[in-house]
């Protein structure tokens, strides 16, 4: 296997301004992993994600993408990295002045030289993938919250990203849509060779599709453990981790 990990997080401290939320974060994410960032509410999961996707520069430590530090990279390298990422936000973050088709088409129009027809076909395919075929001409204000989320995903996968970030993908979705979303994540990961990073505390998802995870803790202000969630469930050295993962997660694990 490759010696440099796909993504490596080194000595990372995260927070807003002088307020430190988490410190001493060290973990690696391998290619094609489905990596979960887990932790209780308010422990800094989303903040960590924001540091990883280039929205907040870390006060200490670094995040390396195949050895490249986003915050110290040149403008060109940054843009290349951003194009190889797909990010879905908690509420979808769709542009409200554009239809769903226009939302999904935007990255294609900006970063590829596909013809209008090919863009339209690609958009139609991506929307079908997330179960929104036929909603091309709808505006975000005309669809439901769950649909927002799925349309956001369609926009994120428009350019076949190598790296997909999800912020609480299944929060607010019914169990069936949530399961479908999990399947979709696995399929995309397999078919496109993408790596997926998910912020979540949905135990069924974590235990069924997660290949790796890091667990953050609000009191300790650092990570408790990292590894395969199915192994951590029984063999983590931290009791807190075992408790967190076994609560309501047992059924899903037994089905494996």
């Amino acid at each position, binding site marked *: 296997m490759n010696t440099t990990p796909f993504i490596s997080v080194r000595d990372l401290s995260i927070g807003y301004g002088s307020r430190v939320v988490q410190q001493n974060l060290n973990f690696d994410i391998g290619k094609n992993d489905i990596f979960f960032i887990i932790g209780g509410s308010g422990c800094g999961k989303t903040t960590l994600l924001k540091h990883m996707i280039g929205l907040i520069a870390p006060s200490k430590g670094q995040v390396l993408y195949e050895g490249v530090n986003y915050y110290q990279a040149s403008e060109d390298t940054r843009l290349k990295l951003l194009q190889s990422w797909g990010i879905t936000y908690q509420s979808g973050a769709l542009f409200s002045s554009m239809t769903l088709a226009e939302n999904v088409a935007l990255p294609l129009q900006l970063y590829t030289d*596909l013809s209008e027809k090919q863009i339209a076909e690609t958009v139609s395919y*991506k929307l079908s993938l997330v179960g929104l075929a036929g909603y091309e001409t709808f505006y975000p204000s005309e669809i439901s919250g769950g649909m927002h989320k799925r349309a956001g995903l369609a926009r994120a996968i428009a350019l*076949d990203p190598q790296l997909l970030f999800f912020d609480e993908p299944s929060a607010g979705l019914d169990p069936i849509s949530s399961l479908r979303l999990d399947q979709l994540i696995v399929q995309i990961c397999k078919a496109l060779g993408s790596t997926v990073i998910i912020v979540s505390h949905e135990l069924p998802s974590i235990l069924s599709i997660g290949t790796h995870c890091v667990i953050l803790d609000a009191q300790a202000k650092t990570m408790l453990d990292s590894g395969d969630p199915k192994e951590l469930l029984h063999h983590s050295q931290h009791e807190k981790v075992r408790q967190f993962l076994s609560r309501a997660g047992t059924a899903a694990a037994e089905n494996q």
Partner: protein
Amino acid sequence: MNALLFRIEQSDIGNQPTADPIEGTSSAATATSKLQLHLCGDWQLGHTPDSETLIAAIPADCNGIALTTNELRHWDSSLAVTLLQLARWCEQKQIALDTSATPETLQQLLNLATAIPPYQPGTNTNKISLLARLQKTITVQGEGLTNTLIFIGDISLAFTHWLRGNAKTRTQDIFFFIEQVGPRALAIVTLIALLVGMILAYLGSVQLRQLGAQVYVADLVAIGMVREMGALMTAVIMAGRTGAAYAAQLGTMQVNEEIDALKTMGISAMEFLVLPRLLALVFIMPLLCIYADVVGMLGGALVATSMDVNFSQYILQTQGAVDLMDILAGLIKSVFFGVLIAIAGCQAGIECGRNSDAVGMAATNAVVRAIVYLVVADAAFNILYDKLGI
């Protein structure tokens, strides 16, 4: 470089492949036939044929297509994009599409895309006639008027509750808005009032000089500012500054479901949100108006003294020109203008839709409505004052 990406063969004739290069014409198929569609090479975003090219290469009389991917090297979702279009086309033409020989991941990507049938919009998309559209426009405008009246009614109720002391209005909110609306607007009011005073003075002095009556510039500026421009200009500034801010604040609260939260707590948005904003404006407007009057007269004095009118002469002339009724006429206007700006701003905010676009629209609406209200009201006031002889 652009190598062959697909090839079509007739499978049931046996070993007589009729290979077609990309975009080539297909050899005539003789009977109804089953085709083999070989996908080959690299299918990558930006380097793939669109589905029409592929579909055009398929003979019209085929009744089944089998996909093979033995020669396929790298592929991404652009292959799935094209195949989805092909699958939809096949379904329309009732041609069987066999994807069993393709990679499992590709099949899954296709299955996911076809798992949920496309949404079919309702059938009532008939064209609306011009007359019907006109009627709709009028109805919408009429509703707008009704809504405004209802809004004014609600505010009046909230106000009477407040007077009786049982409204859920927080006094600290009123003071907060007074600070926002008043002291923070002083700089811009100073600038505008000073310039308006100077403009009036210049305008007057050019005319009055012809009659040798330059000293009456003071009368013109004083009456102009006190009765008209002081109130109107501060109101226009407030409409742009405060009215738009009110609409944006309340609109964002609507988007964040804060107003829903208030309602479900049993708190009237009128009393909690609209009333403090309205009261702050009503309190501040006359003060700003008086301030603008004074600054405007100073501006006039600046111009007049530069044109051989003595400063003390100017002051004396001003004292003679303005009486209490003039000042009151301006102040009454300004109070009324304050109410109108608050109504325009808050109504636009409360009726705001639930997305970021709607907030922008609300702010625009607030300013446009406020200025229309102001000008109409100002005209009405002038007619009224004239009839009453004030």
